[in-house]
């Protein structure tokens, strides 16, 4: 027990001795959380629109007026040169072009069908589709179809505040990144600089050494999470409807998995350089397969299978459920079970792999 305490003390001294390291561990995540939480916004606001009015009547002017007064759109260009408009579309100066055909008014009066062409920049296909349905909405409203058929209610986040969604996600990602890199590099460094051998000739036992390495990482992770959580609640006013205690319970088991992964990387990497590339690989998988930014529901089936092996996917879901939905332990049992199983498995593999030579 005493040996473990001494190692923990040594670890902390080593980390805090280096001022740049302290900055990287504490300040960098905070800055990123503060800045990047503003980045998420899919909502199409002020879609830049060009309208080509080949009709030029009061009717077409009325339709254009509806677009001009709609918050979703920003009327940019208003001319008949199709080639010029297409060029603007290619240059990303506008997102969509609507062409009102000649005889629009006449045809409508005589109840003949008319075609309205919408040209969209579809490099981002999903956004183009949403944009096209907004255009359709304005036109059908204009055509007198004002009846509201389905009334929507947004639960858990009635104002559609994107920060409520982003902040918990970015927070867990930052804790993950620091946790994995720090653990992995820390141990590989001892290997690379040779201090590992010095420790090996001391009477310190394997489990004492590993515990002495992991506990500081757990503490750093918990401290970071707490700072981030305080920012989430006080700066971004993200609600915390569920239990804080429950949040920390999951955090604890999650951090054990993270440290296990770090430890595992350090056992298979020969140098810090190898360790960092392996860590990068694993973290990219976490970033994209956890449902943090890309919803798991939309992924192809094979990818959904992958996500079950990504511990972050459980923790992201837990964070969002506890904070925004007020979910309790009953709804999140399977997540806890999975985190505990993963923790046991990865730690066992890592410790087994780690040989005190």
């Amino acid at each position, binding site marked *: 027990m005493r040996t473990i305490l001494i190692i923990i003390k040594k670890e902390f001294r080593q980390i805090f001795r280096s001022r740049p390291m302290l900055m990287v561990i504490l300040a*960098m995540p905070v800055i990123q959380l503060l800045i990047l939480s503003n980045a998420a916004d*899919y909502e199409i606001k002020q879609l830049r629109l060009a309208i080509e009015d080949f009709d030029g009547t009061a009717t077409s002017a009325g339709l254009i007026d509806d677009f001009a007064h709609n918050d979703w759109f920003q009327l940019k260009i208003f001319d008949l040169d199709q080639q010029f408009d297409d060029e603007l579309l290619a240059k990303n100066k506008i997102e969509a072009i609507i062409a009102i055909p000649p005889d629009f008014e006449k045809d409508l009066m005589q109840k*003949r069908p*008319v075609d309205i062409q919408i040209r969209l920049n579809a490099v981002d296909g999903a956004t183009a589709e949403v944009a096209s*349905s907004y255009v359709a909405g304005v036109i059908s409203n204009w055509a007198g179809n004002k009846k509201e058929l389905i009334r*929507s209610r947004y639960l858990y986040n009635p104002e559609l505040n994107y920060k409520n969604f982003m902040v918990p996600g970015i927070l867990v990602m930052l804790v993950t990144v620091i946790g994995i890199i720090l653990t992995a590099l820390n141990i590989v460094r001892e290997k690379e600089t040779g201090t590992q051998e010095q420790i090996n000739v001391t009477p310190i036992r394997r489990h004492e050494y590993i515990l002495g390495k992991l506990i500081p990482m757990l503490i750093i992770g918990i401290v970071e999470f707490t700072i981030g959580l305080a920012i989430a609640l006080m700066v971004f006013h993200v609600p915390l409807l569920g239990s804080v205690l429950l949040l920390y319970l999951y955090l604890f088991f999650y951090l054990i998995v993270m440290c296990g992964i770090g430890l595992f990387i350090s056992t298979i990497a020969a140098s810090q350089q190898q360790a960092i590339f392996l860590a*990068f690989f694993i973290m990219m998988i976490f970033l*994209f397969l956890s449902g943090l930014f890309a919803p798991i529901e939309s992924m192809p089936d094979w990818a959904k299978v992958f996500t079950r092996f990504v511990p972050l996917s459980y923790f992201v879901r837990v964070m969002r459920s506890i904070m925004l939905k007020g979910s309790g332990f009953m709804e999140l049992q399977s997540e806890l079970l999975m985190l505990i199983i993963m923790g046991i498995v990865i730690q066992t593999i890592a410790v087994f792999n780690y040989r005190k030579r």
Partner: protein
Amino acid sequence: MKHFGIFIWKEFLHIWRDKKTLLIIILLPIIEVLLFGFVLTSEINNVSLGIRDQDNSDWSGELIRKFANSPYFEVVRLHDAGEVQSVLQSNSVKAILEIKPDAERRILAGESGIIQLLLDASDPNMARTIEVYINNISGSYLNDTVNLINLQPLMYYNPNLKSVFKSVPGLMAVVLMLICAMMTSVSLAREKETGSMDVLLVSPLKTWQIVIGKMIPYIAISYVNIIMIIALSIFVFGVPVLGSMPLLFLFSGLYVICALSFGLFISTVVQTQQIAMMISLAGLMLPTTLLSGLIYPIRNMPRWLQMLSGIFPARWFVEVLSHLMLKDSPLKYYLEPLGYILLITLILLLAATKRFKLRYD
């Protein structure tokens, strides 16, 4: 000049000797692009939609069939009111459609709120997308009466609305950026840490020769990555290269130099490998991913954040790639993003060279 050649050769040997790292560097971008290309999509597929039908008429049955037949939704039937809350809370459905009794008559009578859609808005993006899709599906059913206006959307550059058209170029930019920054920052920081930097500095090599010499082997490695990623994007993902291939390789090279300069710059401000890695990975990963336009459109961000995203070259490279791969635009359309990449590169290279001198001359 002869020294310079030898120095570059030495760098190559260094990299060649550590085969494990080399293998990781070559394979990693390929695996990541392959793995995430299909995953990063903002459209929805097979989302579980709970439906609570209190109407139980032919009319509501018809409506529900519309949803069940759509590829976007997987319908889950709910029966009592208590279920509504619990299925949302346990994340087993993302949205619930409630149809009140006697719906058809009441809708025709002009009553509103007969069909209610409850959305789990803890992911607002998802909620909005689901809402749009549901309105589209139900709208076309309830509305196909007198519609004279026929909308013809033309999807430019990506007629089949494939999400890989956005995700693959984006991933290429992000992965190259991170790999390159990590490679150079670590390589120089290691020389500092092990002391071999001092040997370099007393050699007859000029500062710029050291800086360029460090980069050349990594440019070569990056080209292997670029060729593989572009081959993947054409043959696996079906993302075309409509523009000129030589220009694509040329500008990718410029971007790689820019990313390498990022790493170089980092290594001149730090002392140890550990810090260099922390900054080039923990410091760059999230900002590069989020501010490149790969996931969230930059145009929707607050203005100050849009400006900030301009210092991350990935954002500009994504734009260049979309012109070269999807649009076949003339060069003058994307001179601006290219100019920014060049500008960032020059600033970083100058700063890195300058800091070198400051410290050791």
